[in-house]
């Protein structure tokens, strides 16, 4: 069992690095750089780079959550952590982990049910009857992606602090 947990944790970390790495690429590199790219080159990003980023982004988000939940179940703290210590006594680091797990779940929900559907419209991957929807969808996707960047900071802190508590 311990070796299986060890492997699942590795898969969880590999997936998580890809997910948050791509999230930070989008927020720290692609979005701020787009206005500086000449117009004739912009389709290269919108039609080729962004769809590839979003493919790995959403599937790495799904596998991070899947392996994370399996790991928490195997380690026996899934209920205690997700209840954030409200159903009995929990250590501060378990509370930190629980908050971090909820942030991760909210972020994965945002990826699959807000960012990806809106990016499909914004990038023209699906047909829409009203062209004014594109900028609205792009803005909504950007703001939820920023929300995930915001949540990624305490989320990663909570994950690390559980292994190496500050108290």
């Amino acid at each position, binding site marked *: 069992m311990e070796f299986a947990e060890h492997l699942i944790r590795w898969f969880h970390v590999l997936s998580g690095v890809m997910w948050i790495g791509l999230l930070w690429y989008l*927020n*720290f590199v692609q979005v*701020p750089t787009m206005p500086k790219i000449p117009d004739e080159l912009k389709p290269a990003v919108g039609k080729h780079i962004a769809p590839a980023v979003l493919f790995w982004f959403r599937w790495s988000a799904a596998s991070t959550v899947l392996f994370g939940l399996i790991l928490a179940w195997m380690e026996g703290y899934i209920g205690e952590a997700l209840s*954030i*210590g*409200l159903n009995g*006594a*929990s*250590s*501060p*680091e*378990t*509370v*930190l982990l629980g*908050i971090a797990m909820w942030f991760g779940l909210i972020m994965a929900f945002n990826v699959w049910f807000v960012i990806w559907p809106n990016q499909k419209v914004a990038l023209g991957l699906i047909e829409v009857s009203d062209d004014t929807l594109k900028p609205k969808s792009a803005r909504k996707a950007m*703001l939820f992606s*920023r*929300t995930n*960047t*915001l*949540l*990624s*900071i*305490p989320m990663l*802190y*909570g994950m690390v*602090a559980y292994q190496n508590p*500050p*108290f």
Partner: protein
Amino acid sequence: MKNPLESLHKTVALGVVMTVLMVIVAIAIGS
């Protein structure tokens, strides 16, 4: 008023503030 999430710097600053609040909550709730 502009949404603070439109600025990357404000997003990161809010993330750090949220981390500090999270630690305070964990110390308050945890035993």
